[in-house]
Each structure stands twice: as structure tokens, then as C-alpha cells.
């Protein structure tokens, strides 16, 4: 049996979920017996080519580039998983949804206490992806098959979920893995 392909990406997240993937420690050796990594920050492959079995998405969509990446994942992944709270709910970045966009820009680039911006310019180079009107959770942009909660989901949770998905075994997440207090 050929190895299953896994792709991962971090959209508007903090890479904490990816750190948690790495936290599976030496089990990563078992994992690479089962999978081959396609596009991922781990190997720096820039685009998915062909079909991938499982896509793990960290972070929600805050700008147009996030949307483009997410759509690429949806198009190429048989199973798409929202990994962690930002992908599922928007998370911390979505706090800005309560603040008018103009004020967000002004706070970040003009008025914030640590801002040094003598020209008083808000960056708007065409090379910079434009922000969306608000931060969207992934399932509000594309169809998402599974949600793996946690901030971040623990390594054991990620391991259990991937293992179950790839071996076809039923997924059992004990209470300890999905309680957060």
C-alpha cells in the first residue's frame, strides 16, 4: 500500500498547532511510516500537486491569501480538517471583528503605543495580501470535514486523530484529550 499523503498549512494562526504536531515527538517516526508530507511548512513545498488524502489547516481566514490557500487545500484534499480553535472559531485574530477595520489599521500602524511610523503611512503595497472585512473560520469559507478543537490540540489528540483516519480504526478521543480546564 502506498503511503497516504498529508498536507498542512497555517493560515491566520500562530503556528502553535504546528508546534503541537511536532510535539508527537518520536512518534513522528511511526507517522512517516504511514504518511508522506505534501505541501507543509515542515518541508516548505509551496503548492499541492495532485491529490492529498488529509489536509490539516491551522488558523482562520484573515486575508485574501488565506482564502486562496484554503481553497487550494479544499480542491486537492480528500479529507480536510480544521486544526485548532483559530481554524474552527477564528480565535484570537477574530477579536478584530468587533473593531471597525479602519480603527484596526490605525491602531496597528499609526496610534499604537509602540508604533514608529514618522511618515504616517498605512502599508498598502499591492504585494501585501489585503485583509478581509473580518476574520472567518475555515468552514465559513469552504466545506470542512472534521474539526479538531484545542488551543492547540494536544499532540496526543492529533496523533490519535491521524492514526485513526489513516488506519481506518474508529476514532476514540478520551475525555482527557478534549477537556480544556
Amino acid at each position, binding site marked *: 500500500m502506498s503511503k497516504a499523503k498529508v498536507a498542512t498549512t497555517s493560515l491566520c494562526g500562530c503556528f502553535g498547532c504546528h508546534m503541537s504536531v511536532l510535539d508527537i515527538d518520536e512518534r513522528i517516526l511511526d507517522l512517516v511510516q504511514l504518511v508522506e508530507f505534501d505541501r507543509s511548512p515542515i518541508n516548505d513545498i509551496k503548492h499541492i500537486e495532485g491529490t492529498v488524502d488529509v489536509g490539516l489547516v491551522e488558523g482562520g481566514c484573515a486575508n*485574501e491569501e488565506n*482564502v486562496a490557500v484554503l481553497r487550494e487545500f*479544499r480542491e486537492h484534499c480528500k479529507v480536510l480538517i480544521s486544526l485548532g480553535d483559530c481554524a474552527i472559531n477564528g480565535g484570537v485574530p477574530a477579536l478584530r471583528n468587533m473593531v*471597525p*477595520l*479602519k480603527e484596526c*489599521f490605525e491602531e496597528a500602524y499609526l496610534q499604537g503605543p509602540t508604533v514608529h511610523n514618522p511618515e504616517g503611512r*498605512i502599508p*498598502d*503595497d*499591492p504585494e*501585501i495580501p*489585503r*485583509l*478581509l*472585512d*473580518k476574520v*472567518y473560520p475555515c*468552514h*465559513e*469559507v*469552504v*466545506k470542512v470535514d472534521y474539526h479538531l478543537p484545542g488551543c492547540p490540540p494536544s499532540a496526543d489528540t492529533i496523533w490519535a486523530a491521524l492514526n485513526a483516519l489513516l488506519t481506518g480504526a474508529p476514532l476514540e478521543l478520551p475525555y482527557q484529550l478534549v477537556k480544556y480546564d
Partner: protein
Amino acid sequence: MCVSNEAAVREVCERFDHDRTRLLDVVREVDERLRCVDDRSMDAIARELKVPRADVEGVVSFYSFLSTKDKGEITIRVCNDVVDRMKGGDEVAAAFEQALGVPFGGGVGRGSAGAGKGGVDGGDIEGGVSLEYTSCIGMCDQAPAALVNDVVVTRLTPSAARTIVRKLKDRSGSEDLRTLLADSFGDGNNSHDLVRSMVENSIRRAGEVVLAPYESDAGLTNAFSSSPQEVIRVIKASRLRGRGGAGFPAGVKWEHTRAAAGDQKYIICNADEGEPGTFKDRVILTERAHLMFDGMTIAGYAIGATQGIVYLRAEYAYLRHFLDDVLAARRRDGRLGSGLADGFSFDIQIRMGAGAYVCGEETALIESLEGKRGQPRFKPPFPAVKGYLGKPTCVNNVETFCCVARIFEKGSAWFSSIGSAGSSGTKVLSISGDCHRPGIYEVPFGVSLRDVLALCGATDVAAVQVGGPSGRMVPPADFDRTLCYDDLATGGALIVFNQGRDLIDIASQYLGFFIHESCGYCTPCRVGNTLLKERIDRIRDGHGHPSDLDYLKELSSTITTASRCGLGWTSPNPVTSLITGFPELLEQRIPLDPSNNGTGFDLETSLRKAGQDSGLPSYEMEV
């Protein structure tokens, strides 16, 4: 304005005997005098009434007509109900905004910004002015309408709006707003000295029960010649059911209230007619006040109550003095007071709401009367056992009390011979929307919807909203159904939509109404209705997915099952009646091949909005 004035607060509290249960009246009055209830006023009220400060703020923040921020001398509340918007309400709202130079909900302006624009002369409105939207104010037959403080202005146009603004600017300090704003007064008691309103009754068809001429006293005298038990027997024999919409048998309710243990019992008349599209109680209060008060007095006699209360919605405050005057006349004539019959004493007082739809629900209404937020109570215990101030209380609708008095004038057999088998008597309908003759129609129960539509001159009908947003939207295939409790039950609202209307958008607007009016206590209602609206808007805008219909059905059923009161039980009705009655309409609007994976997300829309919000030039470039 809005200078907190401790002396004024103390005076108001004094007038209500520092009675904690009159908190709503206290804050209403403070708000009226000082044009807001600010932090210091709330502190003072809490101190005077010896209630927690949180209770005061809880009440002030609950009711839309109360404000913690200064409203200025004048508040213009433009009705944004579906019918008002169908009749050009948006243009009127824009004209007000432009002429006043104050945005909706944007605080107090002086009205001077409109100078030179829109034909309004410069100058200030003394004391400042604020502009707000408000839910249906019960003027759908003469929409678009608005409230200028307590004064109702109807049949508005953009130019009428500008005229109102100019008149407000030219107004000399003490000039009566009622005479200032109306060119002429309406028919009947609308031009009574104590009303002086441009509102019209538009009674298109008077039936034999409520709107027929009434010899004052006729029913009352007959009722007093029977024993209270006999009175209840008569009401039961008449098969009278509650006219507010739920249709509970009045006689049974009375019997329970009479049987309940309590040294003091209350009769409450629910005149908090808030269901959008309903305005029949307004006309009954204007033209048949005696009939209603007779009915309340009979009810008091039957259940052994000594006190009656009319809970009048804030939007009808312009009728307050008139109704108080009618009550005073009744006291003079010995129709209220002590020794009415066999040692029976009864008096009636008017109490005001403050702009909350949910207070039409009887337990929320009682909470409100007790000076609290209008949040519905758990039932049981029912008000018949434990109601106002914990005492047995009978709450009936304005129209129900009118039926009671008429039954005692003409007999229960006469009454039950009118209407259909399960629904005796007549129903007063408020008809508005796309028809030639909007207004009040009193028809016998059992009449078909088709006949009613013919009466009011509705042609080219795409749908009729029967019973307001909490009722249902009826498709043409069902027009042969009949208006009665066993088929199409209604509290009286019939709103007609022609083929040109976007029914999906109307459902969305009604959901917006429920979102605004939800008391927020329970999650299914507070959150669920917002989710419903989000999804229905998505379909309306052409971004729907076939799976949305299942989602809407499931969510509606969750809201209906898990909500705490009638608001949540019925708020998904605009959606469910759209799905059952107009499936093809939704299917047509949902794209066959949803390019957005069924999420409704549209990148262009999001970026366009971000561009508008941020004002950054990079958004103007092509993607």
C-alpha cells in the same frame, strides 16, 4: 439637556410612594422629564426606592423607549416595519436623516446641518433632536409613520418629513406638538380634544360585536343582575375565546382565577398590541373604550377582583389622557368605584409600557407591571393562580373584554350563533400592505381568506401574512382556508404582499424584528434567530446551498422546542412557512452549482466591504 436632577428624581419617586414595583413608571417619568436616565439619575432612583442599582439599569436598558444617553428635547422614531418600508419608509428615513443632519442612533443634533440641503432652512431645533428606528407602531394602514415624542405622524413622504423638521425648527418653546405637526385631525375620537391626532380609524367594516354602536352600560347592568358564578357560566356558554391570538377559552380562565385562593385579585387588559401589522386595539381603544371598560368591570365582578389595569403600549401614549378622562367620567357616573353591585367595588388604572414587544406575553407584561424587565416567567404557575404581585390575575385582550360586554348586552346564544363552530363571534382584523382599502374589518369567524382579500381590494396577491410575523405566510393555494382558531388563527393582523415583493427578504426582515425584540434570556431564541437570519440572508443574496433548507428546518425546530416563551416558539415561523408554502421560491434562488462550496462566502463581497471600511487605496485595484 439630561442634567441629572436629584430633586426631580426624588419628586418622581415621591409621587409613586417609593414603591419598588412602580420602578418602570418612575424611570419612564424621569426619562420624560430629563430626556434620559443617566448614571446619576439611576443612582438616585436606586437610593430612593431602596433597590439594587443593577435593577434600575436592568429596566432602563431593557425597554427601547428608555435611554441612558441624552435624547434631546425631541425624539423622532421612524417605524421600520415591513409595511412601512413597502410604502416608502426608507426614503422617509433618509429625508429625516438629511434634513436633521443626525444619523439614526447617532445621538443628539441641533438639526442645523440640513441647512440649504433638501429644502430645509437652517436654524436649530431647540433642546436638540435624536433620530431612532422603532418596530411597528400600529399604523400600518397609514404607513409610513413615525413618532415625534408621543405624537404620531402618518402617511409620510420625504417632503412631509422635511416639513416636520422645518416646523420643529420654527416651533416656539411651548407650542403643542400635536397641533403643530397635524394639518388636520383624524376621524372620530382622533379629533377629540384630549387626543388631537392625525391618526385615522379606517373602519372599513363594522361587525355586530365590537364595532357596532354601543349603549353604554347595557352589558354591565345585565351582568350585575346575575351572580358572579352565573356571569362565568354565560361566558362559558358563549364559547368566547381570547382575541389576542392564543384563543384560550375566556370562561375557563375566569373560573380558574375565581377559584384561586387570594385576598386580592386583578384584572389586566393587555393593550400592548405589538405584533407587527396589528392595529385593531388602537381603533377599539379610540372608539369603544366604554365597551372595553364595561367588559373589564364585568370580569372583575365575575372573578372577585377590585382592581383593573390597562397595560397600554408606549406607542399609544397619545391615547393616555383620553382614556384617563373616560375613566374619570365612569367614576363620576358610578360605573367605577365602590358599591357598583352588591358590595362590589372596582377601579381601573392605565399603566404604560416602554417599547417592548415581548411584554405582550402575559407573564412578561406582569413582570413589567411589577417594575422589572419584561422577561416571561416560567409557567406554571399561571397568572390565574399567581400573577400580578403574586395574586390571582386574569389577563385578557382589549377585544376580548369588548366581546364580554356585548355578550351581556345581547346574550350568549346570540354571540355563539355568530362565527364558526369552534370559534364563536367576530374577529376584528387589521389589514395592511398591498391592497386598495387597508384598515379595520370586523368579520365573523370562519370567513375565508379569499373573501377577506376581496373585501379589502387585494389583487395580484403573492402571499398573505396571517397573524403577523409570529403567524404564518399563506400562499395563494391556501386562500380558501378560513380565519378561525381551528384553521388560520390570528390575533388580527393580515398583511398582503403582491407579486412584486421579495418574500425571502420579508422573512428576513421579520427575523430582524424578533432578534431585536428577543429578551435575551434563553440561548435558543437569542442566538438561534440570529443564525436563522444569517442563513436566510445568504439564500436571499443568491449564495445559498441546497443543504441550507435542512439546516433551517433543524434550527427552527430547535428554537421552537427549546425556547422559553411564545416569542421563541413562534419566531422561526417566517422561515418555516416560507419552506412549506413557497419551496419553489427558495429553490429558484439557490444556485444549482454552488461555486462557494455551500458556505456562502464571497471573496469579492468581503474585499469590497473591507475596502469601504478601511478606505485604503489598495482595495480599489483589480484582483
